[in-house]
């Protein structure tokens, strides 16, 4: 069902890799931040911002825009890098991440950067905010609204009760224009999600209370696009996309290791990571 041409897939993969390189440069410069989740979600963010969203990067407060809430605000390096790729602000600004006076706060803040819909970082609050936005939108426009409401979640934050409170409400209100994505990367700060607080069977949990739920490969541009497109066509239920990702994706030293949740590369590690990502660029060029 993916309507992407080979050329589109090629361009999106190139963008995702550029975003990963931005993330490495930003975090190496900032000397603190969250590496694994940021790299892991680069493909989902690329598809969402460059292919799916109805938005105007040069007019971030355009009234008819779709809304995006990043609930797990700590992976904001991928959000900021994707926003530059989409044209919200110049690439140079990325290097100000986490510095005094920067619009790119360590966790995203609405009043600092246009295009950020809500301040986030403390986990578990995003889904209920997107629910509130969708409910208000329905009050304002009824079924004639063409807006979609996207919420990006981490699997670790599904430990939080606030998420389940919101999940019940969204299902009760049958908010079919709510589309949530869980970054199912199996890690959180203290270890693997299975050891900290088991979540499975996750798909069945969401399905059981009325969410249309799919599991996808969160690194396959075609799969991701298809999942978003199907979710947009769903008119009865909210949609939950469980995106299976590899934390630290793209840099072998970081991949799959929970230790890289909240750690950043030093200069040497950063240099090596960028070389590896350059290699991926060449693979994409060659068509793998």
């Amino acid at each position, binding site marked *: 069902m993916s309507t992407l041409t080979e050329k589109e897939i090629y361009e999106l993969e190139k963008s995702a890799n550029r975003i990963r390189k931005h993330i490495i440069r930003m975090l190496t410069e900032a000397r603190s931040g969250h590496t694994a989740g940021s790299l892991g979600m680069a493909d989902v963010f690329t598809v969402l911002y460059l292919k799916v969203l109805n938005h105007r990067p040069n007019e971030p407060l355009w009234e008819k825009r779709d809304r995006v809430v990043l609930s797990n605000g700590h992976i904001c390096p991928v959000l900021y890098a994707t926003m530059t790729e989409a044209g919200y602000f110049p690439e140079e600004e990325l290097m100000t991440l986490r510095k005094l006076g920067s619009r790119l706060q360590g966790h995203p803040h609405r009043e600092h950067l246009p295009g950020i819909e809500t*301040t986030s970082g*403390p986990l578990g609050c995003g889904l*209920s905010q997107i*629910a*509130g936005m969708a*409910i208000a939108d329905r009050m304002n426009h009824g079924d004639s609204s063409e807006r979609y409401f996207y919420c990006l979640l981490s699997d670790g934050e599904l430990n939080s*009760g606030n998420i389940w409170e919101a999940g*019940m409400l969204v299902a009760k209100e049958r908010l079919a224009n709510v589309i949530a994505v869980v970054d199912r990367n199996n890690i959180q700060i203290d270890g693997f999600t299975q050891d900290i607080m088991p979540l499975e069977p996750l798909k069945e949990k969401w399905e059981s209370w009325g969410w249309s739920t799919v599991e996808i490969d969160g690194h396959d541009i075609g799969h991701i696009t298809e999942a978003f497109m199907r979710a947009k066509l769903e008119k009865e239920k909210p949609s939950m996309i469980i995106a299976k990702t590899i934390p630290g994706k793209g840099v072998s030293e970081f991949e799959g290791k929970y230790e890289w949740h909240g750690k950043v590369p030093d200069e040497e590690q950063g240099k090596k990571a960028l070389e590896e990502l350059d290699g991926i660029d060449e693979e994409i060029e060659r068509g793998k």
Partner: protein
Amino acid sequence: MKDETSNLNKDIFTDRMEHVSTREGYGKGLLEAGERDERVVLLSADLTGSTAGNYFAERFPERFVQVGVAEQNLVTVASGMGAMGKIPFANSYAVFSPGRNWEQIRTTICYNNQPVKIIGSHVGVSVGPDGGTHQALEDIALMRSLPNMTVISPCDAKEAYKATLAMAKTDTPAYMRLTRDKTPMMTTDDTDFEIGKAMLFYGEAVGKADVGIIATGPLLYRALKVARVLEEKAIKAKVLNLSTVKPLDGEAIAELAEQTEAIVTVEEHQKMGGMGSAVAEFLAVHRPTPMEFIGVDDAFGESGKAEELLEKFKMGEGDILSAVERVMARK
């Protein structure tokens, strides 16, 4: 004598005076706010009737959201609605909201600067038989420490009504605390109300007096009665209604301190972090003045009748009178 300019109830010290709860005044105010502005919406966490949200919910069911027993969800959903142009009121008991969901209020409402109005009912030991679990005594402290937050503690139902209408017109976060019990209706339709403005309810605006009493919430009535008793003893007291705890009306407080040189604060809240603390923080810097505090002294409430509990926790008229004597002795 009571201040004539504040247009108080002429029956204020008689048996004819009406008693209405501040939550009731809020409920009627919200209904009116809803009639005036369609952006006003209500969210409730399974306590719609007992927070007097029922008037609005019945009149505007299409603008009412029921989230169930989920106070974290209550305020974060409200934040999202604020982001889409609504003026959300979020109702619950104060122990649950802002008690249970403080961080969500901090991040998604205050830091986000969304126009959400948190309404916490059932404050103080006067909640009565439900006991200590349900008697919010910390909510002012929780809310006044948050940047961008306004904190309002109305003295009676009419003031709660006016405060609700005033809050609905602002595009910033606000918290209002309400009481369960019916309390004296001291003010009238003609009494002014403005967010951030303290009002003199007893004594003359100009000139010296022996003591200044600053009260917030329905306990203000006890302060007025004490002022009357003092007058019989030829002690001049001025009583200030400090219904907005934040932003603090520093000008009125400094003037009262200047005129009286002795201040007693009266509130149904922990002494720590409450209205008295806010006044003390201000006076310590701007006009150091001897102070005494009426409030709960680092304790939880318990079951009983409102009147019994107010006496037990030393918020009765006798306690205010003693505090006045103590502070005057320290001049």
